[in-house]
């Protein structure tokens, strides 16, 4: 029994799920530099270095212009379009004290309070 398939379509031979980026080989290839930079943020000293000199730090990792703009604009959907993986982007968000609910709110165009309420409204108990 598969309950999936109702909302999917095949696009260019690849499955497309609305609003749902699937981090596959294409994305992993496209996003490598950005994700490698974000992986470096596991180290506190690297987070501090990014805050001190963002331009220089991004330069060290060879971000594409699209990735650099997305980071400069703090635009999560654009980072994902540029191949960013959310687990790595979360480390970048953490530098600014933002968590996955802040990031969710930005991507859905909601206020953080509205995003949290949307989740609370799904409670069953």
């Amino acid at each position, binding site marked *: *029994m*598969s*309950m*999936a*398939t109702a*909302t*999917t379509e095949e696009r260019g031979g690849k*499955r497309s*799920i*609305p*609003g*749902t*980026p*699937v*981090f*596959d*080989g294409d994305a*992993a290839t496209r996003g*490598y530099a950005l*994700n*490698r930079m*974000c*992986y470096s*943020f*596991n*180290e*506190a000293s690297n*987070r501090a270095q990014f805050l001190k000199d963002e331009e220089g730090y991004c330069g060290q990792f060879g971000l594409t212009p699209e990735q650099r703009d997305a980071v400069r604009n703090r635009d*999560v*959907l654009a980072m*994902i379009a540029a191949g960013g*993986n*959310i*687990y*790595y*982007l*979360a*480390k970048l*968000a*953490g*530098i600014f004290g933002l*968590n*996955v*609910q802040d*990031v*969710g709110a930005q*991507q*859905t165009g909601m206020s953080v309070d509205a*995003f949290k309420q*949307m*989740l*609370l409204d*799904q*409670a*069953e*108990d």
Partner: protein
Amino acid sequence: MAQIIGGILTSHVPAIGGAIARGQQEEPYWKPFFDGFRPVHQWLAAQRPDVAVMFYNDHGLNFFLDKMPTFAVGAADRYRNADEGWGLPVMQAAGGAQALSWHIIEHLVGAEFDITTCQSMLIDHAVVVPLQLCWPGAQPWPVKIVPIAINTVQHPLPSPARCLALGRAVGQALTNWQGADRIVVLGTGGLSHQLEGKRAGYINADYDRFCLDEIGPNPDVLARDSAVDIVELAGTQGVEIINWIAARGAMGADVRELARNYHIPISNTAAATMLFETGSSLRAAA
């Protein structure tokens, strides 16, 4: 002879670790989730396992995308936790059940699972938060661990059916283990949630209920969907259910559900906890 005494399946949301660090377990937002661990604590206090075999996924702490194993089995005598970048306190290391790890590795490769073996491996919140939930405040952790990491990050992911088969092969290795260990199997992650894209915040309680109802008696029905099917059904991170499916496979054919808890939301996640007694412990009690 070793004994598989049971299994625990639980969400591993990082925010849970933050709530523990701040002592928020009794606050209204958190209490419905933490209360789900009371039966787990009672059961663990009575059953006293020595080893936890833990199926989980790494989130960019140990594995970067430069080398991404589909299945990775820890073979260390100690596993350190480390800074993941967004403020969780770094927790104490966990001891590794190293001889059992190599026994599992021998069995898995013998069974033609082409795994990666890791003599050095950092454990992230997907291991540490469940340890904190099961044994709050324990120092050191009262179990040694065998961490088994499944790729849920970079597609193509292993199929749910393959994860179930991997788990079953681990279960066979555990039943053949000559040590006297009392072994508990853990599967961490899920249930439905999605962090990225315009569908961020997606939760599917119907699919979660299906998983909770079927994973004990009929795990094969969960394995009929592909990993991408599950992404659609449960969200991009809801696919972590494949860690549960693998863990369920390792518990053996016969399980009895002792407790479950399902609560929406914890952060962006439909959070759940299940406790199973296994066939071998059922026979021992009879």
